[in-house]
């Protein structure tokens, strides 16, 4: 049987020796796991990255964490693994019995961000907290002793609502302290990269073998300081909530400014600080433009959410990837859940098509314009009372698409 080949796309620039070593290592990993050959190819100057990648069945590339979320949501690309540049990650920590479920619930509350935790890096989570919360910073002396008990006490006495820790500090806490805490979300504190594959890649086979392979590997740093790590879906949720909470539009972020971030993997960061600095400045300018641009969309979207909330129909608004944005009270009543329980969740976790197709496949057909309605049922309940017909409409807001679903007639009613 011929060996299958994957095309690994790279930005068109000279690879440093360290990057060459890294890709050699990846080539070996694919050979071991899938008996798959890797061919590297530079992106062409003309044509979008999406178009070039879409032309190949087994296409893989490194992108930033944000681009991975975007490509997954809008182009059905699937994340394969992460390449972490630090063994540690950021943890947004709250008391175990806290009612906070989303980063948005922290708005207006007092939180603690210790000095020295990744403030030099563009990070939507920290930006959201700085912009929307009352932030206490840990005094320098606490950093020196690196024991955050003082703020943990504040947290447990409800004097502050959350504290940002890194996983090293969290590991320093006693087991009894850790039991009193809950981690709302995790996020990278360095510039991690995600290997992402085109829609036709044998993702299931890869993940199955990669997880096993990772377990038997010692987590040693590769030559240029990176480590392999599995994809954790929960990582993305906190980032998406923070980006949305800041009023950003991820689609515009990537499509208009991809040059700012997509090419960083092949740069030797220490040797090429000037380029990184320019990119950082570019991102700052971009942020200002984006916030202004997004305000207009946001206002119309807020109006839409408000309308949806008060409508008497059983209505739900969600993104093409299934992420729920808003619902009417009628819909909440039908699914027997409260609004905070379902906002940000995936619609496929609540309702399923009453046929041999996944929700995602049917949404693709709706987006394609072939169908506008199909039968659905509640995922966690059985019985004819939970069958219904659902009609869908695509709403285009500038460059993004939102899907409006309305529960029509219910079976037996």
């Amino acid at each position, binding site marked *: 049987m011929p060996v299958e080949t994957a095309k690994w796309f790279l930005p068109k620039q000279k690879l440093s020796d360290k990057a060459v070593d890294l890709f050699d290592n990846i080539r070996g990993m694919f050979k071991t796991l899938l008996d798959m050959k890797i061919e590297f190819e530079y992106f062409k100057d003309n044509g979008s990255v999406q178009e070039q990648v879409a032309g190949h069945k087994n296409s893989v590339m490194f992108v930033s964490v944000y681009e991975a979320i975007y490509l997954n949501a809008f182009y059905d690309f699937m994340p394969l693994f992460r390449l972490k540049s630090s063994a540690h990650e950021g943890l947004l920590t709250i008391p175990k019995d806290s009612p906070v479920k989303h980063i948005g619930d922290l708005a207006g509350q007092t939180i603690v961000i210790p000095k020295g935790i990744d403030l030099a890096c563009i990070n939507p989570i920290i930006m959201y907290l700085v912009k929307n919360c009352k932030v206490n910073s840990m005094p320098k002396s606490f950093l020196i002793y690196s024991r955050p008990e003082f703020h943990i006490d504040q947290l447990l006495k409800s004097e502050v609502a959350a504290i940002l820790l890194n996983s090293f500090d969290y590991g320093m806490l006693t087991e009894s302290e850790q039991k009193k805490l809950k981690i709302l979300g995790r996020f990278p504190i360095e510039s991690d990269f995600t290997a992402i594959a085109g829609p036709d890649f044998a993702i299931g086979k890869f993940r199955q073998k990669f997880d096993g392979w990772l377990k038997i590997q010692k987590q040693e740093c590769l030559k240029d300081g990176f480590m392999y790590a599995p994809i954790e879906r929960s990582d993305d949720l906190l980032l998406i909530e923070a980006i949305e909470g800041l009023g950003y539009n991820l689609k515009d972020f990537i499509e208009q400014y991809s040059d700012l971030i997509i090419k960083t993997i092949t740069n030797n960061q220490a040797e090429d600080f000037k380029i990184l600095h320019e990119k950082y400045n570019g991102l700052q300018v971009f942020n200002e433009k984006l916030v202004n641009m997004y305000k207009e969309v946001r206002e119309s979207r807020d109006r839409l959410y408000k309308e949806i909330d008060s409508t008497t129909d059983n209505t739900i608004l969600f993104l093409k990837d299934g992420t729920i944005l808003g619902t009417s009270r009628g819909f909440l009543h039908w699914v027997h859940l409260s609004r905070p329980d379902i906002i940000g969740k995936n619609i496929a976790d609540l309702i399923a098509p009453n*046929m*041999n*197709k996944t929700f995602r496949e049917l949404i693709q*057909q*709706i987006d*394609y*314009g*072939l*169908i*506008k*309605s*199909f*039968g659905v049922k509640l995922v966690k309940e059985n019985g004819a009372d939970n069958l219904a*017909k659902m*009609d869908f409409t695509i709403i285009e807001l500038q460059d993004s698409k939102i899907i409006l679903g309305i529960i029509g007639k219910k079976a037996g009613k």
Partner: protein
Amino acid sequence: MNKYRILIVDDEQNVCDFLEEFLQFKGYAPLKAYSGVEALQSLSEKKTDLVLLDILMPGMSGIEVLENVRKLYPDLPVIILTGVKDRRVVDDTFNMGASDFIPKPIDLDVLEQSITVNLHRKE
């Protein structure tokens, strides 16, 4: 029990594939044709109980296919599935003997009901 054979005629593979799976799930035996010529060829070779027909196709249009079907198989139900919403086109297809007209995007409930009704009517 023999399954009803339903011929899907559409030049878009995605449409044919999706409807094929939908019809299989509903217990029918779907056939596919990607052009008017293929559709007439299939009808001449395989007993068919109903046709789902797109209008806009390269080469022989759905209207021409409908004309031919009416001449050759006067009792065969033909349901038009199309994105064309022009009232005159709707009237024309009914005048030419279409059994039903279902606009795209399709309401799958409506499609299923129309298939059931037209198969019963034929019998």
